[in-house]
Each structure stands twice: as C-alpha cells, then as structure tokens.
C-alpha cells in the first residue's frame, strides 16, 4: 500500500518533469554557459546580481557577486557559516532594506528590472521567503494563508486561494478539518509547510528558502524536499542549506560561496548539480563539499 502510493507519486512527478522538459525545449531553452570564473550564465534569468557587494556599517560582508538565477529551477546556495549566503539571498527581495546599517552596491535585477526601482511589497510578493525557523502568525491556519491575499486587496475567492495554496504545500489533507484552529497547534514540519503555503498564496515567481529544513526531523525534511521538486515546475527556488546531501538531492544548480581571510564572502563556483557535488572545478568547493573546510 505504502510503496504503491510512493510509486504513483513518483511516476506523476516524473511525468510532470518530462512535460516541463518538453515545454522548455519548445521554448528554445538554451543551455547555460560557464565563464572563466566557473560561474554559470543563463539567458533571461529571473533574478540577477550584478557586481553586488553588501556591507554592514563599515564591514564588507559580500563582494563582487555576479549570479544569474534561471526560471523554474532549484538552485542551492552552499558555503561555510558566515560566508554571506543569507545576506546574498536577502538582497533578492530587498529584505536587507529592513537592516538599517546594510548597504548595497551593484545591482539586483528581477525580470530584468532593478529591484530597488520596484515597490518593496511587490518584490516580496513575487519573491517570497521561507525562513529557518517556521514563523506562522499567531492566527488560525486559514488566516495565516489568507493574510497575504487580503493585504493585497483580494477579497473574493479567498477560500479557493487558501485551499489551493495548502494543496500545493501538501498540507491540505492534514488541516482541512481544522482551518480555524491556531497555527501554533501544528507540528514543526507542518508549520514550515504552512509558511510555504502562505508564501504561495500570493502567487510568487521565486521562493527564497533560508535553511528551511534545519529545524525539522527527517520525515518532515523529506516532505519539504518533495515539495521543492514539485513546486519547481512553476516556481523558481533558491535554497540556502548546510546539508550537502540535501543540496545534492534537490537542486538543479548549486552555487558555492566562501569567505577568505578577510572574512568577505565571494561566489567562488556556480555550476550544475553533478559538477558541484561530483567533480567541482574549484579546489575550495571540493574541500567544502567533502567536508574538509567548514
């Protein structure tokens, strides 16, 4: 019974991935190109950092990042603690704006538009974020998911939006009979999926995930990973993780960041999953993924 369910899910996912591949082929999807700095370049990226440097007060945290994020793919961002991964992804939806001392130079683009020229609320709808620790609002499950659309002025079809979002986050079956109960009554894994449903409710194009499974048990982690693969059919996912095996399992591409002796983070290699976890070109990436620096 159990294995049958897995088999059905697996074949459905495979079918979806095949359809996705054929659609991308028809859209004349061009292969990414690796430049001389071991960084991948894509045509029409959905997110892009151009010569991005970020500092906190007088301390430079991340410097000269050139990174392009392709549409509807899962990209993992790896690197030792303190190398600037979270700092970097927070730039993609202007979350660093909330930190007074954070200063940014260079450009961040969303669909070829400079994000600083777009209203921060709009950027955050389109580029949603899920954090390390599940952070549901102290409201009911329903209200948590309906919050974004309500603030966005969407008053019709709220029930439908909530149901669809919860279904997409693979949580509907577990909570459909207790939508009015507090979100705090859910388990950690369910709360994290609720946060993903809340992000999905406003139809984002990109979801940034900052270590979304680090506080979860293996089964909840597995469900989030399945979810990431399924969501990547329609949403771009940029995930920060310290779990190399997880990054190797879920991502299409991986980017490795590293801080040198001056403690300034840099993007040192960005390539396909097989390359980064199978045969990295940069010695530092090799040392990091094999656990010899960290």
């Amino acid at each position, binding site marked *: 019974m159990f294995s049958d369910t897995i088999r059905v899910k697996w074949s459905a996912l495979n079918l979806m991935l095949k359809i996705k591949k054929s659609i991308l082929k028809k859209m004349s999807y061009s292969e990414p190109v690796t430049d001389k700095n071991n960084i991948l370049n894509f045509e029409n990226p959905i997110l892009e950092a151009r010569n991005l440097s970020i500092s906190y007060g007088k301390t430079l945290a991340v410097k000269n990042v050139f990174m392009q994020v392709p549409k509807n793919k899962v990209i993992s961002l790896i690197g030792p603690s303190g190398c600037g991964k979270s700092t970097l992804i927070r730039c993609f939806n202007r979350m660093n704006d909330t930190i007074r001392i954070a200063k940014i130079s260079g450009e961040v683009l969303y669909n070829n538009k400079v994000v600083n020229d777009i209203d921060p609320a709009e950027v955050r709808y389109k580029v949603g974020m899920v954090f390390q620790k599940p952070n549901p609002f102290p409201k009911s499950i329903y209200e948590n998911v309906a919050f974004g659309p309500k603030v966005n002025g969407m008053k019709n079809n709220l029930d439908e939006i909530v149901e669809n979002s919860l279904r997409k986050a693979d949580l509907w079956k577990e909570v459909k009979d207790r939508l009015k109960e507090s979100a705090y009554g859910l388990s950690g894994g369910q709360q994290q999926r609720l946060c993903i449903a809340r992000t999905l409710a406003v139809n984002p194009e990109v979801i940034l995930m900052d270590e979304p499974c680090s506080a979860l048990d293996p089964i909840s982690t597995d469900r989030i990973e399945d979810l990431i693969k399924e969501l990547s059919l329609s949403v771009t996912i940029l995930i920060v993780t310290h779990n*190399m*095996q997880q990054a190797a399992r879920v991502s299409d591409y991986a980017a490795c960041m590293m801080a040198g002796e001056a403690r300034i983070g840099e993007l040192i290699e960005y390539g396909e999953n097989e390359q980064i976890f*199978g*045969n990295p070109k940069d010695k530092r990436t*090799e*040392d990091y*993924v*094999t*656990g010899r*620096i960290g």
Partner: protein
Amino acid sequence: MEKYQGRKSLDLDLLEVESKVNALSSQVQAVVKNTMESFYTKELEKSKKIIDDDININNFSREIETITIEIIRRQSPLASDMRKLTSIIFVCQELERIADYASGICKIGLKIGNEPFITQFEKIPKMEEKALEMLKKSLNLFCNIPEIEKGLSVVKELMAQDDEMDYLNSQVQRDLIKRMSKDANLVKQGTFLIWISHNLERIADRSTDIAERTLYVISGDSNAVINYDLDA
C-alpha cells in the same frame, strides 16, 4: 607545520580501506606470479593450494566492499571521496576476477598433470610477463593516485600493451589450432593452452580497466579515456 584541515574520521576510514586495497593488490599479484611458476614447473601441490586459497581472496575482496559500503553509509562522501570509494568497490571486484583467472590456470595445470608439454613456451611466458607488468602498473596507479597527465600517460601505455596482448593471444590460438588440425593427439592439451592464453589476456584487460577507472577517480569523467585526447 601546516595545520591539518581534514575530515579526521573520513580520512582515517579512507586510510584503512586503502591499506586493505594495497594488501589485496599485493596478494593478487603474488597469486598470478605463483600460478605461472607452478604451471611451468608442474608443482601440482602448489597449484592445488592456489585454488584452495582463492576463497581467501574472494572473502578479502568482499570484506573490503563491505567496509567501503559502510563508510559510504556513515560518511555520505561527495566529489573525489565518493569517486574513490565507489571505485574501490569496482577495483576489488576486478582483483577478485583476476585471482579467478589465476585459479583457472591452476585448474588447467592440474588437468594437464605430469603429461609433457606440447610446446616450448615462447609466447605464453611473454604474455605472462606483460600481464604481470600491466597489473603492477595499474595497481600502482590506483593505489597512488597521480595528476591527470601522469594517469593519462600510464593508461596510454597500458592500452598499447593491451593491444599487444590481444595480438599475442591471437597468435597463440592460431599456432595451436594449426598444430591441432595436423595432429589430433594435441587437441586436448592444445585447447587447455588456448585457455591459459585467454586467461592471461583477460588479466591484462582487467588491469587496463583498473587504470581507466583511476582516470575517473582523478578527473570525475567516466569517459575520460575517450574525452581526453590520448594521442595529444
């Protein structure tokens, strides 16, 4: 002194399994050498012992495989560590097969028994020498992983030697078949000798496989032999 920047438990595990692969390599090389010696000198007891001891090689190979799988399970290795560990499993299987070929030669030796040889042994000793040299070279390469250039040059040498082995094997076969077609009394031993030549050729072939696998450990490219221009 440079600060140790490793993954201590994984590095120790690798060291342990590598030393076992080294030991298995030495054992298999000794078995191949002793096999041919006992064959030429008709030391049937020695041949019998080699056949009986083959089980030890099989067990040792399986032990290394089990340890390697356990390391993979426990350490979740990636990149070069993973390539090395998966290749160790492959190489152990190749070594186990090579020892089987040696054991096969011993069995043929027992079948021939004290009957006088029908040949002066010109090409078969050449094949033995070449097979042993190739085995030594490939195991040296695998146990002391070099830079890609060095690896490529060794593989290039081994591929050339493998071609020579194929040629010698076909010559041995041709000569023996020719003689057997003239004298039916030679058929039994002639067929046995063809098998010995075949086994030596297989040892050489598997040695080349080990060296090619080493290229994968170095480069991460499973088609390194094709993708790197060996004539360059």
